[in-house]
C-alpha cells in the first residue's frame, strides 16, 4: 500500500509542478511541456523494458525515434507524382540488389567450406559489386527526383494517408530495423552493444540527413498533416468564440490551448495503453522469464530458456515503442528535421529519465520522463534566474556578469549530470524502485 501512495504522491507533485508553470508562465507553455513529457515517458518506457527488464543496453534511441519521424513522411505526405515518372521504382530495385549481395556474402561466410582468406576475398568483391551495381541503378533516378522542384519537393513524398496511421507504422519500421540490428549485435557484451547501437543510430541519422530523395535531408519536410484541427479553423468556430468570452483571454491563445489539449488527450490514451500492456507483460510468465535471464543468464540457459531469441524479442518491442514515440513527436512538431536528432537530447537524456525514475519500474520511467523533461526545459529560465540572483550585486557592465548570464543556459547540462550522478550514488534504484515479486 505504501508503494501506491508513494507513486500517487509523486504524480500529484508532478501535476502541481506543471500547473505552477500554467499559473506563473502560461498555460500554453505548460501544455507544451506536458505533451513532450508524455512523449519522453513513452520513450523511457521503451528503454525500461530493455534495460530494466532484460538488462540490454540500447543507446540507439535517437535512431529509432528518427525512424518514427520518417514514418510520418512516408505515410502522410502527398506523393510527388513526377517522382514516380522519373523512375522511382528503380530505387527499391537497386536496394534489393545490394541486399541480395549482402545476403549471398553472408551465405558464403556461413555455408561454404572455403578457407577464411578466400571467404574474405569473395565477400569483399561480392559486396563491392553489389554496391556499385546499386549505385549504377539508383543514381540516375535519384538525381532526377532530387531535381524536381527542389525548393518544395525533390523527394518521393508519401502515401497521403491520415497521419495517425504513421504512429503504428513508425513502430513497425523501428521494429523491423531493430530486428536486423538485434540479430547482428545482441551477441555483443554490454559496453560493445552500447557503442554499436550508438554507432548504428548515428548511421541512420546520417542517411536521413543526406538521402534527399527519401527525407529531403537537411532541407526538412515541413507542413506535415495533423490529427487535430488547425488553430485558424478553430478561431471561426462559434463555440470557441464563446469560450473566449467565458475565460476572457485572446482567441489565438484559446485556440492553441484547444489544439494542445487535444494532442494531450490522444497522447495520454496511448501512454496509458502502452503502460497497461507493459504491466501485463511484466506480471506474466514472460516478464518473470525476462527478469530471470537478466539476473542470471547461465542458470536461465540451464533451465532451457532461449536467451538470444528472448533478448531479440525484448529489443524489438522496446525499439518499436520508441519508434511510436518518435512518430508522435514528429507529428506534434509538424515537421521532420533530421538535424535536431542529437544523441545528447535523444539517447542520453532518455537514459537519465529511466535511471532516475527507477529502472525496472514502468511508473518510475513515466515519472522520470516527466520530471527530467520538465527540468530540461525549465532549468534554462531557472539557471538564468539563479545566476542573476547571485550576480545581482555586480554592476551590469561587468564582463564576468554578462558572460555568466550569456552561458547560464548551459547550466542545465551540469544539472542533469549532477542529478544522474547523485541518483546513481545515493539512490541507485531510482524514485520508484522495482517491485520485488
Amino acid at each position, binding site marked *: 500500500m505504501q508503494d501506491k501512495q508513494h507513486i500517487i504522491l509523486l504524480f500529484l507533485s508532478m501535476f502541481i509542478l506543471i500547473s505552477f508553470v500554467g499559473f506563473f508562465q502560461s498555460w500554453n507553455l505548460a501544455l507544451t511541456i506536458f505533451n513532450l513529457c508524455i512523449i519522453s515517458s513513452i520513450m523511457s518506457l521503451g528503454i525500461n523494458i530493455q534495460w530494466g527488464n532484460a538488462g540490454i*543496453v540500447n543507446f540507439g534511441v535517437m535512431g529509432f525515434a528518427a525512424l518514427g519521424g520518417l514514418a510520418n513522411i512516408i505515410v502522410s505526405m502527398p506523393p510527388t507524382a513526377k517522382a514516380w515518372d522519373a523512375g522511382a521504382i528503380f530505387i527499391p530495385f537497386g536496394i534489393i540488389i545490394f541486399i541480395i549481395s549482402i545476403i549471398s556474402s553472408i551465405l558464403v561466410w556461413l555455408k561454404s567450406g572455403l578457407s577464411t582468406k578466400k571467404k574474405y576475398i569473395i565477400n569483399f568483391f561480392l559486396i563491392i559489386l553489389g554496391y556499385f551495381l546499386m549505385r549504377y541503378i539508383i543514381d540516375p533516378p535519384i538525381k532526377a527526383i532530387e531535381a524536381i522542384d527542389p525548393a518544395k519537393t525533390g523527394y518521393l513524398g508519401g502515401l497521403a494517408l491520415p497521419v495517425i496511421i504513421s504512429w503504428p507504422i513508425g513502430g513497425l519500421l523501428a521494429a523491423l530495423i531493430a530486428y536486423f540490428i538485434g540479430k*547482428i*549485435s545482441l551477441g*555483443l*557484451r*554490454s*559496453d*560493445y552493444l*552500447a*557503442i*554499436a547501437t*550508438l*554507432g*548504428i543510430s*548515428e*548511421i541512420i541519422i*546520417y*542517411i536521413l*540527413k*543526406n538521402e534527399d530523395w527519401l527525407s529531403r535531408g537537411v532541407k526538412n519536410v515541413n507542413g506535415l498533416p495533423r490529427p487535430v484541427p488547425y488553430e485558424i479553423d478553430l478561431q471561426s468556430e462559434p463555440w470557441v468564440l464563446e469560450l473566449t468570452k467565458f475565460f476572457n483571454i485572446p482567441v489565438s491563445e484559446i485556440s492553441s490551448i484547444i489544439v494542445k489539449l487535444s494532442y494531450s488527450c490522444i497522447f495520454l490514451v496511448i501512454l496509458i495503453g502502452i503502460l497497461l500492456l507493459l504491466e501485463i507483460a511484466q506480471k506474466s510468465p514472460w516478464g518473470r522469464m525476462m527478469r530471470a535471464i537478466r539476473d542470471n543468464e547461465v542458470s536461465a540457459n540451464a533451465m532451457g530458456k532461449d536467451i538470444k531469441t528472448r533478448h531479440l524479442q525484448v529489443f524489438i518491442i522496446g525499439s518499436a515503442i520508441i519508434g511510436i514515440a518518435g512518430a508522435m513527436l514528429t507529428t506534434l512538431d509538424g515537421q521532420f528535421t533530421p538535424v535536431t536528432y542529437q*544523441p*545528447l537530447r535523444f539517447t*542520453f537524456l532518455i*537514459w*537519465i529519465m529511466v*535511471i532516475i525514475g527507477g529502472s525496472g519500474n514502468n511508473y518510475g520511467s513515466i515519472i522520470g520522463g516527466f520530471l527530467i523533461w520538465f527540468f530540461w526545459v525549465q532549468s534554462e529560465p531557472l539557471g538564468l534566474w539563479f545566476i542573476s540572483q547571485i550576480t545581482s550585486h555586480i554592476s551590469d557592465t561587468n564582463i564576468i556578469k554578462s*558572460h*555568466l548570464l*550569456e*552561458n*547560464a543556459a*548551459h*547550466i*542545465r*547540462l*551540469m*544539472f*542533469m*549530470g*549532477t542529478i*544522474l*550522478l547523485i541518483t*546513481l*550514488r545515493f539512490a*541507485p534504484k531510482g524514485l520508484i524502485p522495482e517491485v520485488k515479486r
Partner: protein
Amino acid sequence: MEILNSFILIANYIIIPGLTYGSQLALGALGITIVYTVLRFSNFAHGEFMSFGTMSTILLTWVFIDSNIKFGTFPTAIIVLPLSIIFTIIYCLLIDKFVFKFYRQQKSKSVIALIVSIGVMFFTGGLIRFIIGPGDKNFMDGERFILKAKDFKMLTGLNEGLTIKSTQGVTIILSIILVILLFWFLNKTKTGKSMRAYSDNQELALLSGINPERIVLITWIITGTLACVAGTLYGLDKSYKPFTYLHLVLPIFAAAIVGGVGNPIGAIIGGFVISFSELLITFAYKKFFFYILPDNFLPDGLLQILSTDYKIAVSFIILVLVLLIKPTGIYKGKIIE
C-alpha cells in the same frame, strides 16, 4: 611527371590529413584503452576530458597573448600545453575522487560505470560550455604553414601543390614523442610494469604488493595527459567547438575497438585505420585518374565511393563491421566481463 602529380595529389589530400587525423584519434583511443584496461569501464566522458584540456589551453593561450608573451612563429598553444595538461590531470583526479572511486570500491558492473561516465560527460560538457561558451574558438597563432602549395609548385615545377600546415606538422611530431614516451613508460619502468600487471590480474598484483591507489593515480595522469594533448591538437587543426568533442567520442571508440580494446598498439593502428578509410572512401578520385588514365578512358562523375557528407559515418560503419566480424579487433584485446 603525370605519375608524380597523381602521387602529390594523394599525398596532399589523403596521406598528410590522414596522418594528422589518425594521430589525433590514436592519442584519444590510447586514453580510452588505458582507462578500459586498468579501471575496467568504457569512459564516455573521454571526449569531454579532451574538450576540457583544450579549453584550458585556450584560456591559457589568451592569458599569454594578453600579457604579450610570444614565442616567435611557434603556436602559443603548444607552449602552454604542459600547464593545461596539469589542469586536465587535476580535473580527472577530482572526478575520480568524487565519482569513479566509489564504484571501483563497490566493484560495480562495468555497465554501471559506463552510465556513471555519461553523468560525468553531461556535467563536464555543461561546465565547459558554462566557462567558455558554446561558440567556435580559433586559437591558432604564429606561422600557419610549413610548406605552401605555391612554393612547392615553384620548387618542383609540378602541377599539383603540396601543403603542410604547421598544425599538421606539430600534431605528427608531438604524437610520435608522446607515444614513444608512453611505450617506454609501460615497458621499461617499474611503475609501468606494475600497472600492466595490475591490469592483467588485479588480485595477483595486490598480493605482490602493488598499491592500487597509486596505479589509479598514474592511470589518470596518463589519461589526462593524452586527453589534453589529443584535444588541443584536434582543436588547433580544425577549430574548437565544445559540441564537436561530443561527436568525437564515437570515432575514438571506433579506433580503440577496431585496433582491439586494451591494446595500446591496437589503439594507434585503429586510429590510422579509421582516419585513412574515412578519407579513402570519401575522396573524389576524378583528378587522380585524370593524371594516370588516357583522356578517352576517363569516366564521368566524381568517382567517389561515398559522398563527403558521410565522412564521419564511415568510422561508424567500420566500427559496426569490426564488432560483427571480429569483436576483439585487429590486435586481440582484452575482454572484461
